[in-house]
């Protein structure tokens, strides 16, 4: 079989790589897909706990008050293996978060994307991650 054919099969959708919404819990069980949130604030605390890490972010409202959000991230075990520590986004770091609010209406959201001030999307990338299977090479 030619490489090109393999590539075409993959392009035809045979690769099961769509990041599933279901991991420790179903996305839709906790978060409301109809309530996307865009948060611009400052990190106050990072909890590297299972089953999900949580990044605490203070967001300044237009009226000068502060809203404290909690943003759900991945399992810290994966993050640690990729070199992510609490210091990676230390308290005081400005971040932009794209995610979805929790269904109960509390100020919690999943952190689909977290972007740093320099525009770097914190969580992008699946190569050179330092994951064990890459280290063995």
């Amino acid at each position, binding site marked *: 079989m030619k490489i090109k054919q393999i590539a075409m*099969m993959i392009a035809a959708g045979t*690769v099961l790589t769509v*990041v599933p919404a279901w991991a420790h819990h179903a996305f839709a*069980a906790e978060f*409301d897909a109809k309530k996307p949130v865009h948060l611009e604030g400052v990190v106050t605390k990072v909890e590297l706990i299972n*089953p999900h890490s949580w990044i605490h972010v203070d967001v300044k409202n237009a009226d000068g008050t502060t809203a404290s959000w909690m943003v759900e991230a991945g399992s810290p*075990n994966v993050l640690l293996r990729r070199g*992510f520590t609490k210091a990676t986004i230390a308290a005081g770091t400005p971040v932009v978060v794209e995610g979805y609010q929790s269904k109960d209406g509390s100020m919690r959201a999943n952190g*689909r994307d977290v972007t740093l001030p320099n525009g770097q999307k914190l969580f992008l990338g*699946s190569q050179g991650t330092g994951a064990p299977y890459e280290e063995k090479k």
Partner: protein
Amino acid sequence: MYRSILSATTLVLTLGGLLSAQMPAAKSNSKTWSVPRTPDGKPDLQGVWTNATITPMERPSSLAGKSTLTDAEAAAYEKSNHDELVKQDGQSDGPLIAAAGSSGTGGYNVLFVDRGTELARVDGVKRTSLVIDPPDGRVPPITPEARKRNAEMMRSFSNFDSVKTRPLSERCLIGFGSTAGPPMLPVLYNNNYQIVQTPDAVMILIEMVHDARIIRINGTHAPPNVRQWFGDSIGHWEGDTLVVDTTNFTDQTRFRGSSANLHVVERFSRVDASTILYRVSIDDPSTFSKIWTMEYPFVATKGPLYEYACHEGNYAMPDILGGARKAEQEPKK
């Protein structure tokens, strides 16, 4: 040489059902390597291992009839897999998800996912499915009874009445996706295992939810009334292969619709310095029309396993139940 390996693999695949009691002969990477042994002379399976792989459990229909890929084909597949992940991340960039107003891009980005970047390699050849028997790489059809069980299970996912109605994994009681199994399947992330071995027992610590399996060597099964989420596992050595027999499952850990009568036989063989070849057969006549078998490597990886204290940090559960209570109070549309 390459062709002979391929032929041997094909033979194994073809005869997989007939030879389900036999592991392929252990192959070594070099002439100097020999199976490491414990003081009592048994193969030493101890260490930290990962079964992360992008090889799907079932062979995609477009790869029908093609159980293996050449290294060049595999590299193309793996690159496309990577490119697709990057593309998905890009799709949620910036305010796009808000504009889209949907969860079409999924809840999590690539950093949270750790399925590995490679297809599973067995006998030097990359595989297109974990299932090796039936030879088409697909799970045999399930019975009408199992379909009914599956439907009930799917319905239960939308029952938010209390903590106890939620899935075991959501409650942090066991890992999701049969990570502890058995069968011990690769899942989205944390595909790490530690094996500790004595003459009387083999313990497998599964990173997710710090599940631990204790396999009693030359033991006998618990009475039928004793039921466990991971079943009751006993083992024995057949030559240099550890054979683990597991029964006594509950009716709560449904593996693809399986019943409490699920019977799993796993075979662990050290095949080189960095690999345990894992072969697992699934038998449950009330669920599957025939016995079926998967095979994939557990590759040595750098430890340690990290803690997975799950319940203490399960903030998701109050969100999930709270969301359901809020929905109940909202006026019906």
